[in-house]
C-alpha cells in the first residue's frame, strides 16, 4: 500500500512537469517566446544524442557508439528516416563489436 502512495506521488510530480506548459501556453503567446520555442526541439534532441554517442560511459571517447552515431547521422541526413537510421547505426555497432574494435 505504501508503494502505491509513493507511485502516486511520483506520478503527480511527473504529470506536473508534462502538463504545466501545455496548459499555460494554450492561448496567444508573445512572438518572442514563440520564436524562442522554435529552437527548443533542435537543442533538446541534440542534447539527448551527444552524451549517449560520445560519452556512453561518462568519459569522452571515440568508441563503437560514436562510429555508429556518425553513420547514423549520415543515413539520417540522406534518408530522413528513423527506421533506417536505427538499423544502419545498430549494424555498424554490431559489426565493430564482432571484429573486436
Amino acid at each position: 500500500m505504501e508503494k502505491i502512495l509513493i507511485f502516486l506521488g511520483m506520478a503527480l510530480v511527473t504529470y506536473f512537469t508534462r502538463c504545466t506548459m501545455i496548459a499555460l501556453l494554450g492561448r496567444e503567446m508573445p512572438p518572442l517566446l514563440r520564436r524562442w520555442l522554435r529552437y527548443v526541439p533542435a537543442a533538446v534532441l541534440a542534447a539527448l544524442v551527444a552524451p549517449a554517442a560520445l560519452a556512453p560511459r561518462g568519459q569522452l571517447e571515440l568508441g563503437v557508439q560514436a562510429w555508429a552515431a556518425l553513420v547514423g547521422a549520415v543515413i539520417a541526413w540522406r534518408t530522413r528516416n528513423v527506421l533506417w537510421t536505427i538499423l544502419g547505426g545498430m549494424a555498424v555497432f554490431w559489426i565493430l563489436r564482432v571484429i573486436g574494435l
Partner: protein
Amino acid sequence: MTREAETVREFRRGLLAALPLAPGVIAFGLLYGMMARQVGFTSWDALAMSFIVHAGSAQFIALGMWNVTGAAPIILTTLVVNLRHLLMGASVAPYLRGLSPLWKASLALWMSDESYALSIAAYERGEGSHGYFLGANVGVGLTWWASGWVGAVLGTAIPDPTRYGLELVFPLAFLGLLMAFLKDRLHLAVAGFAGLLALLGAHFLPGKWYVIVAGLAGSSAGLLLEEVKRRWKKS
C-alpha cells in the same frame, strides 16, 4: 472522412511510428523489471509503477533509492529528473492550441522523451496531429509497461539486455528526428552548441540536468543569433 475516423487513422500512424523504437524500449523495460525484482518488488508492483508513474529514467533512479531513503527524497528526485518535460511541453504547446482541455490533459499524461521527439518532428514536417501524438504516446507506453512486467517475471533468467547495444536505439532515433529541424545553418549551430553543452553537462551535472541546461542555452543562443543576424541586415 469524418473527424473521428481521421483521428483514428492518425492514431494508428503514431502507433506505427513508435515501432522502430520498440527494441530500445524493450531492452530498458526488461532491465527495469529485473532491477525492480532485486529491490523486492513483485512483478505486479513493477507493472503498477510503470503504469502509474510512466517515466523510465525516474523509475530507474527511484529503484536505486528504494530501500535506502524515504518517500520524500524519491518523489523530489522524480520531479527534478522530469523537469526537462517542462521544456518539451513548452515547445510542443504551440501545436496543441485549439485542442480541448481533455485532449491536452491526455496528451500530457503519457508524453515520454521518445513520443515527444516523434511527435514534434512530425509537426515540424507538417505531418503531425493530436491523434498521431496520442498514438506515439500509447505505442511507447504499451511497450514500456509490457516489457517491464516481463522483465520482472523473468527476473535474472534472461541475459543482460544492454549487452546488445540496444541502449543506442534511442540516440539513433533522436538523431533521425533531429534532421527535420536542421533547416538552416542557424539551427545546425543550435544543435551543435547544445550537443557540446550536453557533453559538458552530462559530465559535471547530476541526473538529467544536462538536457535542461543544453536545451535552454541552445535555444536561447538560437534566438540571440537570429536577432544579431536581423540587426546586421538592417544596418
